[in-house]
């Protein structure tokens, strides 16, 4: 129950931050470069929403990935301490599983990197 409350609080906080940033973006909207223009040539004004989106996406992905990897590692440690003879097999499967779990966070990272480093997405709305 307490965890749910914390989660809802974080959600409200996120919505508040989104609101302020989008209001900020709308105020600055007048200075947006024309569509099709090269953002590099005009100093490359990034949409602030991009920063918030990329940061929050990465944070959520890292939290989930960390929790899942901790579960996998805990199960692996328990297996090894129960049956030390199976250490090599368990180590192999834990490393493989960690790679699979990590891949989901990496997908988020790639999306965030595409958002941040592709000038096509930069101009403010």
């Amino acid at each position, binding site marked *: 129950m307490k965890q749910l409350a914390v989660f809802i609080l974080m959600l409200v906080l996120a919505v508040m931050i989104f609101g302020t940033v989008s209001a900020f973006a709308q105020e600055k909207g007048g200075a947006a470069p024309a569509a099709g223009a090269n953002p590099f040539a005009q100093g490359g004004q990034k949409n602030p929403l991009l920063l918030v989106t990329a940061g929050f996406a990465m944070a959520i992905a890292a939290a989930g990935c960390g929790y899942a990897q901790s579960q996998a590692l805990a199960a692996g440690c328990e297996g090894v301490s129960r*049956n030390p*003879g*199976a250490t*090599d*097999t368990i180590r*192999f499967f834990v*490393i*493989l599983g960690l*790679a699979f779990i*990590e*891949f989901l966070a*990496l*997908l988020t*990272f*790639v999306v965030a*990197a595409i958002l941040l*480093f592709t000038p096509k997405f930069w101009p403010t709305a």
Partner: protein
Amino acid sequence: MPEEQFFISSVLNRYLFNPAARALGIHFSGQESVPPHICMLVVISLLLIIFSIFLRSRLSVDNPGNLQQGFEVLHDALTGFMRDIIGPGAPRFFPLIGSLFIFIWLSNLFGLVPGLMSPTSNINVTAGLGIIVFLYYNAQGFREHGFLKYMAHFAGPSLLIAPLLFVIEIISHMARPFSLSVRLFGNIFAEELIIDTLNRLFPFVISLPVMALALFAGTLQAFIFVVLTMVYLGGAVEHTHAEEAHHALPEDTVESSGFHSPK
């Protein structure tokens, strides 16, 4: 990511690639005719080829040198893993898997040298590696089973759910080169980005521990790429359980997995 000038690519471009491109009449925009990751690919490939030829000329059975012994340890470890995962006929796949491991490992570690970059931190390079693996394991599957039997291999054991399973298997196989390449690219790119960001905060001091971590992560990623290649190859080449249930895993690995030895 903004295009940056890397030492080796600017040198190679200025003295080798740009004059060659001008001589061939190829037009290019910007200062560099060849992007940095291709330069690093060329450098690493040449290094590996020259090193291999040098090593091969010094191979000997009676009097093995340190280098030869080190590579024999690597060979034994990799073939041991391949025997566990693929089966007894595994060593015939060693040329691809061994070269993949050495190449990816060296590529990951080269990014830690100042002035160089990892070619694997570019999605095009890792996509090439993933597509090579995809084509290779499917070709091996076709060669092992023949066209129809390999296609039936996708459909699963039961005829009832075969249409559904066939579609799902095809989609999952299509996702394999994507996941292989994005996994490698994401890890190496993230690592380079973190080192770059820390270097901008405070040059060289904070990023040293991260570089030590990156040594470990680069090795692990090369290993994971190779192990996943082995798993895919094993899935493509393996025979059905009725044919040879006992040859899939050697006896000693079944013993050491602990399932049959109550303690």
